[in-house]
């Protein structure tokens, strides 16, 4: 089945999961977007980055992993759950990391319980999902933002700044407090004004300042 990279998942504003088939061409475009973000935040050859995510999020995060790989960034991985805190503790405590991308609130809490939050706070570039961003801010550390806006990955390129999707790929808007997303470029599974689980403010049609409205990890039970 040439042309299909895989079938991932996205979550809509009602917490429902949707299968998300992604084409290889889309993935390559997303890799180029991720490469520009890595350039913007200064990650390249010789750096080490831990990607914190779930397998169901790979359609959103794999372009970033691939871009980092091709730039010569050394990678490590942990799931985004509280149970993975010991793994992150070992990774960050054993190997000096330059970045951790995708931190969740439950992981931050579990690291705190282990007495290992300092390992995370010592990493120069931390990219956190909305609730984790708020939690780390309360602990005095302003980090970069990340949000899964339905199928779109938004990443901030400066501490405390808005998280951005690529304007050539995605258009963001709001319906009330809910952030919506529309795919701009051709996709196997296009979305149009899809209400997402993200609430917050949209800037310039492709940047979002998400609010921490609940746990970072969606654990939906219903699929459409």
């Amino acid at each position, binding site marked *: *089945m040439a042309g*299909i*990279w*895989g*079938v*991932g*998942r996205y979550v809509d504003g009602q917490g429902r*999961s949707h*299968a998300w*088939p992604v084409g290889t061409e889309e993935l390559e475009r997303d890799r180029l977007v991720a490469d520009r973000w890595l350039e913007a935040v200064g990650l390249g050859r*010789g750096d*080490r980055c831990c*990607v914190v*995510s*779930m*397998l*169901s999020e*790979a*359609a959103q995060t*794999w372009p970033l*992993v691939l871009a980092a*790989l091709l730039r010569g960034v*050394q*990678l*490590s*991985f*942990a*799931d985004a759950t509280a*149970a*993975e805190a*010991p*793994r992150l503790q*070992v*990774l960050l405590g*054993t*190997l000096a990391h330059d970045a951790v991308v995708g931190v969740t609130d439950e992981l931050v809490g579990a690291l705190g319980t282990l007495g290992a939050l300092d390992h995370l706070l010592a990493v120069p570039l931390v990219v956190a999902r909305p609730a984790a961003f708020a939690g780390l801010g309360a602990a005095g550390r302003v980090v970069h933002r990340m949000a899964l806006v339905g199928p779109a990955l938004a990443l901030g390129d400066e501490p405390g700044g808005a998280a951005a999707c690529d304007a050539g790929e995605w258009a963001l808007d709001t319906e009330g407090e809910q952030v919506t997303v529309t795919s701009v470029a051709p996709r196997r599974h296009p979305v149009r004004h899809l209400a997402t689980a993200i609430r917050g403010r949209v800037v310039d049609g492709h940047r979002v300042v998400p609010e921490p409205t609940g746990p970072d990890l969606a*654990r*939906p*039970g*219903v*699929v459409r």
Partner: protein
Amino acid sequence: MTVTLPPVGQRYFDPVRETMPRDELAALQWDLLAETIAFAYERAPLVRRIWDDAGVRPGDLHDIADFTARVPCCDKDTLRRWRTERGDPFGGLLATDPAGLTAVTSTSGTTGEPTLVPELWGRGSVGPPAIMYRDFWEMGVRPGDHVSLFLFTFRGPVFAFVQQLGAVPVLFDHDVAEIERLLRTSAELRPTALYNFGGPMLRATAEVAATTGLDPAEMLGSYRAVVAAGEPLGRRARALAADWGLPIFEHSSVGDVTGCFECREHAGMHVWEDTVLLEGLDPDGAWTTYPTGATLPVECGDTTGAPVARRVELVATSLTNRVAPLVRFRSGDLVDIDRTRCACGRTHARIRTVGRRSDEVIVAGRSVLPVDVWEAVESVPACRLGLFQIVRPARHAEVLRLRVGYRDTPPARLGALRDEVAAAVAEAVGLEPVVELVSDLDLLRLGPPHKIPRVTSR
């Protein structure tokens, strides 16, 4: 890595390697082993230290029997000690420039803290594609299929092998909360293989089916293979899989060197012996494990010996890893090994996992492993998830102590439930246990989610 696929109608992915006569396989193993040990001795500091202390050099060895007779073993403690004493995160095994690594993944960490695994994607091993490719091809995965991956991320991009087989990965988290989505998506996309879906998930699927009214037999009916790993399947999980018509393929690790899967004959898990040298050691024998032993073994493992070995400790040496090759690594896993030709036509060894050496408790002279009490625990309805731990402060104990998970039981009935569990276990193992009851959820929190520690010191 570019993978050349065989004709879709062909059963074997690599017929020459998979059905190689054992004498040819042994010759190939020695060629690969000679290359591996020269490489490892030259580059991996722990390997060099072990061999130097034993007075052995790669050039001294002339065949596999030489190797198994003269080279000391190592184990996880050896690696941990090296890591702690020298601040070397890779336990003295790294045989390449650390700056050139693609990634650092890790083991699950069920029996301790996760062990770091250095990786060079696409160029970390020599030889043709073997693990996963041969196995999923045997299970019936073909180009154009969908393959459901119900997994974690800490091992890295596990979906790559699916794509190399020309199939499309469908991605799920290894989480009970994903089961309903798995059921519905499977009904829609009709995938042919599901990896990894062990006992806890099979049992949880029954719960999801009960609450949603979904029919697993119908929704999972497209699967030609459902791979189960993490821990042995209990009677209840097997019964559920049979009821739903799911063809279960067991899967396990081979001493942290590689993995192994059942073929369609379901007669043990095939270990690809052109990628790993497999030995089975008498777990109570006087084997030298660096640096604690002083005496070198005088008997070799059963590598070239009897075709069948029972309850031996699995020892593995990588034959293809060029990043951090493990050499004579004692896994602590007790296995049965069968090197007779499988009914599928393959000549490579098959293993069955019996338990962990560290899990064995000797009570009144009787050996007890988790597998011995598993079905007894599951047979009690309130304990049907089969969640339990053997409490083992030391290898020898005067009484068998069990911590058993339960559900749906009011406090007033717990005494009777305790007696019921004790009676079932006593009938199974011939020992009257002391049973502590805890909720299923409390035991599941001990994770990782695909298995719980089956033995605990307290």
